[in-house]
């Protein structure tokens, strides 16, 4: 059951008007232009017990991602591929609107949009994760942990997931006589094979304006958001309109244009991450 949100914080009309007045001048509360994302920080290798990890700060939004690699079984219908699972949690320390409990529809949407954007373009080389076809493959658990929610969890999460995957290492292993796989925890291992680099860019429609990388208050007053996923060849590898406002074709085209430019900024941030 999906229910119209009835507990979201209310942004006073007067504040919304102030935002719109600024947009009219091409500016936002924090001094940004409408088509610019916030400051981006990407740190990788931040967790010792995960095979890959990254912490991303997008303005005040903080997302931590850990990738765990475990030996498991393939899905029955894809015996020649490893398994990639993306999971997101609304950790309640990240926001006053998060309550403890299983992932809600927003967390599920977040993880599924990230998952699809990776999966459809085969960003991770799942074929290279096979240990013994049909029996033993690497299972990659990608856990998105939002630590501080100031809007645009899609882009921040995707940046963190991508950075974490790009620095994920698969440990060496040995096949025992029993058929069991012994993972050598202290081995150097090998880098996970990545086929494509993917980013998502989120724009929001507020009043008559399209802005990029909305913060939390902007999300609250937005009619809808549009999440577009791109690979390094600027193919569109995923999309999701989220939020209940309707979208005109004209606005779609404007959003697409802005998003393509911002995608380059995100790609650069990933490129320049010290590894």
């Amino acid at each position: 059951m999906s229910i119209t949100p009835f507990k979201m914080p209310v942004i006073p009309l007067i504040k919304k008007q102030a935002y719109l007045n600024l947009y009219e001048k091409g500016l936002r509360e924090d001094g940004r232009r409408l088509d610019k994302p916030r400051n981006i920080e990407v740190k990788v290798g931040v967790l010792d017990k995960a095979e890959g990890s990254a912490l991303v700060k997008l303005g005040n939004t903080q997302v931590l991602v850990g990738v765990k690699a475990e030996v498991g079984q393939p899905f029955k219908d894809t015996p020649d591929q490893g398994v990639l699972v993306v999971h997101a949690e609304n950790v309640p320390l990240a926001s006053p609107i998060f309550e403890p409990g299983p992932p809600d529809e927003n967390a599920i949407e977040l993880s599924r949009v990230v998952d699809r954007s990776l999966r459809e373009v085969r960003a991770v080389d799942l074929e290279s994760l096979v240990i013994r076809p049909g029996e033993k493959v690497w299972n990659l658990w990608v856990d998105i942990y939002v630590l501080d929610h100031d809007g645009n969890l899609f882009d921040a999460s995707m940046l963190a997931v991508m950075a974490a995957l790009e620095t994920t290492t698969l440990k060496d292993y040995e096949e025992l006589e029993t058929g069991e796989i012994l993972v050598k925890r202290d081995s150097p291992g090998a880098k996970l094979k990545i086929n494509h680099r993917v980013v998502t860019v989120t724009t929001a429609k507020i009043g008559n304006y399209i802005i990029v990388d909305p913060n939390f208050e902007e999300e609250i007053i937005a009619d809808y958001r549009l999440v577009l996923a791109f690979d390094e060849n600027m193919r569109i590898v995923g999309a999701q309109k989220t939020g209940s406002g309707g979208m005109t074709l004209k606005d779609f085209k404007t959003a697409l244009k802005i998003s393509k430019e911002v995608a380059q900024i995100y790609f650069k941030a990933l490129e320049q991450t010290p590894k």
Partner: protein
Amino acid sequence: MGGGAKATLIREDGLRHDGRRPEELRPIRMQVGVLANASGSAIVEYGKTRVLAAVYGPREPYQRFMVLPDRAILRVRYHMAPFSTSERKSPAPSRREIELSKVIREALEDVVLLSEYPRTAIDVYVEVLQADGGTRVAGVTAASLALADAGVPMKALVAGVAVGKVGGVLVLDVDELEDSHGEADMPVAAAPDIGLVTMFQLNGVLSEDELDRGLSMALTAIEKIVSIEKEALKRKFEAIGEEV
């Protein structure tokens, strides 16, 4: 997506595996007022995909605190019957169903005049009876019809359709086979009478040009589907007229 092109999705003659042209819809059937208890209901078929929708309300919500002072809340459940799929589906809501319930709610929320009914809830139940691709978009169509059947005031009717890319070709109204083996699936819903796209998702890989063309294909088809909706509603009112 995924999988190799196990089946020949585009035949040598340029037609699709089931004989359709790329821009051809499957046979679409609709009927409203099919349930006695619900305030409004509709059954919609896109080929073998069959979806039943029912609306209850506006009514006082089960849990009293679950209201908004200035408008009705919309509660939507998209659910697949256990026997709707090739392998029996467990009746517990899957993550996919939770996401699609949200996506369908958001595809309807902007067209329903919720402010007419403050402090109430309007419940929309979408049940997939048979799944052969396009269940969420058929679901939006059925839900829109059921709302109209229930007499809930709306700015416009909504309908949905999925555009796919199979064997390099953009195709309209993908079925399950095309969805499983194709390169992209793009579900779209819109209210053409007011020029708004209300659902937009892309699972797969498209160039910008393909995206543009695909969106146009979808919107053209949606206009057609909305006109079928109007006929279905007309049939009902005529039937009532006859009864009087």
